[in-house]
């Protein structure tokens, strides 16, 4: 089986909590999708309700630059 590539990984290390479910977020599988492209990533996710967190640094950094690259395709 091919090893799946993750474009980005953030481990919340127990520092974030899902307000609704009252449990800590864990490192979980998520996917960014934009203009018919998809990227597997690992982000803080609530193990109960599946809330995926995109921190500010990630949104303004990596995510923004990938967006720009895809927009100019």
């Amino acid at each position: 089986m091919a090893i799946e590539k993750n474009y980005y990984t953030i481990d919340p290390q127990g520092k974030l909590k899902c307000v609704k479910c009252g449990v800590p977020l864990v490192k979980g599988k998520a996917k960014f999708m934009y203009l018919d492209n998809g990227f597997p990533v690992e982000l803080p996710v609530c193990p109960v309700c599946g809330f995926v967190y995109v921190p500010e640094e990630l949104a303004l950094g990596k995510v923004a630059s990938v967006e720009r690259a895809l927009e100019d395709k």
Partner: protein
Amino acid sequence: MSQIQERGSTHVYKVNKISKEEMESMVARCVYEQPPFCSAACPLKLDVRAMLKAAAGGNFKKALQLYEKIAPFPLILSQGCEAPCEGKCRLGEIGDGLAIREVERAVARYGEQSRLGSVFRSAKRQKIAILGSGLFTLLLAGELEKKAYPVTVFCEESDEEAYLRTAAPFLDEEAFALELRRLKGKEIRFECSCRLDAAFYEQHKASFDVLCASDEVRAKLFPDSAPIPELMICEAERLVSGPTRGVLDAAFGAKKAALTVDRLAQKLDPRNTRGQEGPTDSLLYTDLSEAKALRRVAVPAGGYTKEQAMEEAGRCIQCHCEECLKSCAYLKHYKKHPGLLAREIYNNTQIIMGDHQLNKPMNACSLCGQCTVVCPNGFDMARVCHLARQNMVSTDKMPLAPHEFALLDMLFSNGNAFLARPQPGFASCRYVFFPGCQAAAIAPETVRAAYEDLCSRLEGGVALMLGCCGAIADWAGRTEMAQQAHELLDRELARLGDPIVIAGCPSCAKELREHGVKELRGIWDVLEEIGLPEGVHKLERPMALHDSCGARGDAATQASIRRLAASLGVRLTDTPYSGDRSPCCGYGGLTAYANREVAGEMTEQCLERSDEPYLSYCMACRDRFARQGRESRHLLELVYGTDAGAPPDISEKRWNRLTLKRSLLRELWGEESMEDKLNFELNYTAEARRMMDERMILTDDVIAVLEDFRASGEAIEDEDGLLVARRRVGNATFWVKFSRTDGGYLVHRAWSHRMNVVKREG
């Protein structure tokens, strides 16, 4: 809530709005790539400008390398050339033209000879023979040696020294010695003391691929041959030869002959692919206004010293056309002349698969038309960029991100914030006031004062229309959306009884005129006609007038504004680049949305022209200057004694439009509008507000997130105990970091991204 469909990345390629030919003819208007006048006059195409630059900097080695490209024997050419370049030097129009030939002599003397004949050069196979002597044969041998052909010269002289003497009798002794050394250093084989007659020719003919001859030898061998001067060949005899007159003509003849030899050696027709040969007329434009009228450095008997040559070469003004780059911050930013940039942008629109690297520059032009005015040939960069945008939209390759905020803003102006009403008490009106979306957003009180004034002083009723003229969509290249805006305005104008439009903004006036609104006047025209309102304050102060790019080419409007300003007591200080040459504030063409950096540079460039407070007649200009910290007023603020104050942020701009509409509806038409009241208290830290403005996040977006949070309870809590909630609105996901307060929330931070994020199974 309005939404615009995001494009997919795998759409089919559709129509092309502009042909390659059309683009090339547009590109050709830029004369930047034209040679300077000196080089154009030189049949050998010496890069005079570059050579002079190197010499002026004392780099004689480089200068000589440039000179040797056209002169295999630099001292011969520089001592004997007739120098037609000098007569064309533009400096000759104001003082002395450059002593180009004298500098060349110095370069030939002081520059180190470059070692072209290096051992690594692989020689060509085809063998060339040159029969006879004289300057043409010497220079031809030099040209062919440079092209790496094995050359043999057959001459009647007894040795190379005698041969050189015949070729260049005019050389002084020093130069002769140097050129003899140069000749001996070249890989040219000599067969001396030959009798160049018919028998000799027949005997050697077969051993060479191409044969060349001096004109004398040619005449002896083939008295009836007819050399073609453009090709230097007697075609019937396949002999490369022809008459030349003077040193420069011999060099030019040798250059043409060498090209012919090249073609023949490759078994090609010597007529084909020769490019432009000989002197031309340059179309380059040179601004001489700052050039100094100087005398040339006097030439001592033995020629210039190094220092003198450097001084003379330093007088060269390096003719370049930079009119547009001097005045346009956008072109300056990309450091490219428009001819080149336009070609790259056009090519960008032709990419079907792959990166569109020119999207940014294409969207950074403010479409203001300044270049067309300052360019001596009327180059129209705005048209290039505008067409390219339309092209990208029509082929579905245009990213939505750079313009989406502005487009949504337009939909808001023509949706929730739109208003069209006849003056109270009138069923249909003679006029309608159209202040423009930016005026309502930035200076709502000024709009109100102007409307009330017009109602009170004009006969026949004045309707009011608050909305966007469609320029936003037009600038974005979204023709269909612009069309929709025009249709809305047409419908509403018809409903009001097709009144005469009184535009508050020159850009709206331009857009509406271009889209068929026939009867249209600027509010400035009306004010001039009916006079200033009563009790207007006279100001007695100096201000710098910034002409709006919407009024470019509109002398009447520019004059009217100046008269109004004068009647208000304003003393206008003169700035360079005013009137038709005025730069854009950075708002035009949506530069402010698509490329903030360039927009900022545009604003700076406008403000550099004067230290006085700025007076403008477009609200967007007023806003951008104020944001930059300059005291900035719109003409209507002075007329009505209003002060729009500190520039509003993006949310306040929307709020201002909505509030203006609601309060006017209530006060003038007695209509209450539904206000969406929040049922919680919402506050922002100053940091959050600043961040939202910069990141183009509206309070409406924040409210949407928080309402969602209140309904779903979904959020996370970070280490500091702050909550973070999110919501997808349109094509973006908004995140809000907040804390709870007594009656609601305090927003600390906000961010967004366009990519959609979902959980993935497995």
